[in-house]
């Protein structure tokens, strides 16, 4: 073995060593990215498992983080106190669920059955017919042919709760009235806090075994949902709501957007 050959062997060995050391150096400086990438791999493998279980979900899942507040609203009868404004319409109020039910004195014809919001968007601003109407937005996901739903907007997000929505009753192409709940005197309880992404929420739901096999996740939406009631107020937090079609049934699920826990 001549010296030159030995040199070549050493050269190859040291080049291999250098490649390894360079890799280790970049590994070290990208440790946190490495952690992120391992999280991505976990997410990818979970999504693959969903497909294996024949669970389909919306194609474009957002990975974007969001933020929201802990908020509260008093469980009071504000709508009842203001219902005098709706004098010409027949009103009824339930103190149990703080719900105002109104039957219009004159029913309103819908110009389009497919797009009922085109008509209702105009009447919702009429304060003699609807209280605080400008705080609500049309919610096509919850609406049906017989019930057009508008949900209250709070700090840029929908309220996804029994409280904070207007359900317009539609019969034979006419809006005959509605039932309404309202979150009033909303207080922010803590500073804005980061929420998990839509993708992460789906992964949590699956990992909690709350997604049945052979089902279809129709939509996943971020909104304010009821967390608990205490001392005459209700606390709401950002939550990811899921609508799932499983066989013939429709399932609703919720994930706490702050910590990924399943909500009842």
């Amino acid at each position, binding site marked *: 073995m001549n010296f030159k050959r030995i*040199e070549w062997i050493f050269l190859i060995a040291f080049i291999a060593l250098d490649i390894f050391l360079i890799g280790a150096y970049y590994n*070290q400086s990208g*440790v946190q990215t490495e952690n992120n990438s391992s999280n991505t791999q976990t997410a990818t493998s979970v999504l693959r498992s969903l497909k294996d279980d024949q669970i389909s979900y919306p194609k474009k899942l957002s990975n974007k983080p969001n933020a929201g507040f802990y908020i*509260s609203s008093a469980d009071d009868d504000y709508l009842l106190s203001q219902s005098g404004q709706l004098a010409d319409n027949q009103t009824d109020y339930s103190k149990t669920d703080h719900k105002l039910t109104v039957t219009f004195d004159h029913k309103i014809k819908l110009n389009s059955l497919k797009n009922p919001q085109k008509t209702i968007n105009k009447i919702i601003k009429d304060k003699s017919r609807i209280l605080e109407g400008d705080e609500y937005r049309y919610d096509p996901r919850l609406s049906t042919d017989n019930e057009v739903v508008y949900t209250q907007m709070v700090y840029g997000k929908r309220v996804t709760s029994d409280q904070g929505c207007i359900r317009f009753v539609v019969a034979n192409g006419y809006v005959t009235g509605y039932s309404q709940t309202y979150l009033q005197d909303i207080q922010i*309880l803590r500073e804005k806090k980061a929420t998990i992404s839509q993708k992460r929420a789906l992964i949590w739901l699956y990992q909690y075994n709350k997604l049945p096999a052979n089902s279809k996740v129709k939509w996943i939406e971020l909104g304010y949902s009821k967390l*608990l009631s*205490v001392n005459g107020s209700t606390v709401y937090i950002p939550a990811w709501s899921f609508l799932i079609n499983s066989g013939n049934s429709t399932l609703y699920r919720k994930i706490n957007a702050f910590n990924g*826990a399943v909500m009842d």
Partner: protein
Amino acid sequence: MKIKDNILHFVLGAAVVLSVGLSAILWVNPTYLQNNSKETTSSVSKSNGSGDDQTTKTKLSDIYKPTSVIYNHGGHSYVQSSVKLDVIEKVRQDTRTWKVKDAGSTKKYSEKKYQSLLRRDQMAFLTFSDEITSSEVTDLQQKTVQALRGKKFNRVAIQFNKKKPQVYLLNDADRHVTKISLSQGTFTNLRKIVAAKETKETPIDIKKLNDQYVIFYLSSVNVRQYSYLATKDSASIFVTRLMGSSNSSVNSRREDQQMIYYDNSGQRMAVSSKTGAVDYSSYSRDSTANHSLSSELKQGFSRLQDTDRQLDDVRYDEYNANNRQVTYRTYINTYPILADDNYGTYQLSLGGTGSEHIGFSLYFLQVPVPSSKESVELSPTQQVLDKLTQSGISQKKINGIRIGYQRAVNDTSKQVVDLVPTYFVLYNGSWTPYQDILNGKVS
């Protein structure tokens, strides 16, 4: 021919030099040799009311965050705060982009010069509760800056009235000032915060009280009151989490108003049935002689993780080198809970007497709920100090003063705890509400 022959020698030589150099860099930076995913992040599982477990990752830099942002302008200093915005997280959106290129030499300032620096116009301060090193502030990407290794600081100062913002590390304890230069970094969010477009400005002055630089509120300050739904963990959870790793079985006995859990390996956990205060102790696992601040703070974080608690609002509060104690407290928007019985607090004693201790409370804050009172008006700091001295307390005995939260049981629900802000004074080694000192409840 000669050159051709020599090329092989040179290339081999270069490969050898490169491998020696890379090895040296990697060896000098010990983080490579340790498991980074454990050092810098932790998976913390938390049980919520429904009994479900989920993991949230608490990073080292989430615990070792600044606790306040101060900005000087127009000849005055102001604390920037907001009830809607997490000011510190906003600032971190900037600091995460910073890459430290170099650190200048550290200068020791005279008292007069340091005080002047703390009042310098158009200077912002990200203030940590106590001394820290750059290893804990992993937002500052500076793995190769040797000059910063082990350097202690408790303020990151940013000078805005230069062409490009200048960044300094300040240490109140020894008045050391180090200028650092960044190869990249944004200041967009910081600029917005110091412009007070989304934040409230409260006038203050940072000045010395005995040995400490302390925030003096110059006028009355309205501090928000909070209420929380509080939950009590069962002691058995911590028997598993803290004591469960050893092979020996755990026994228990009742002693006065305490339940003592113990095993044969020297582990012991005392739980007060009245207050929910827990004191866990074990023989020290610390075999290294390295008690540098950075090593202590990393160890403290590791012990904190052992409790497996949700650490969302938990922040590093102070380190006592004499007894090697690291204290973490629950911070509610700028101010810490300073209640007794370790409520919202984690006291880690890292050894020194041969045993380690973890002190905390079974109680934890679960969900904020509406408070019966929106805010409390507190007097200017000097007024509080004057009241204390007028009542016969020597100012020399007051080693610190700060605003914090004490807890009170809510009138309408036992499960709800009210966090009421007041001034706390570091008196006889513990933080005490100043009213208790005035009322003679503390001697």
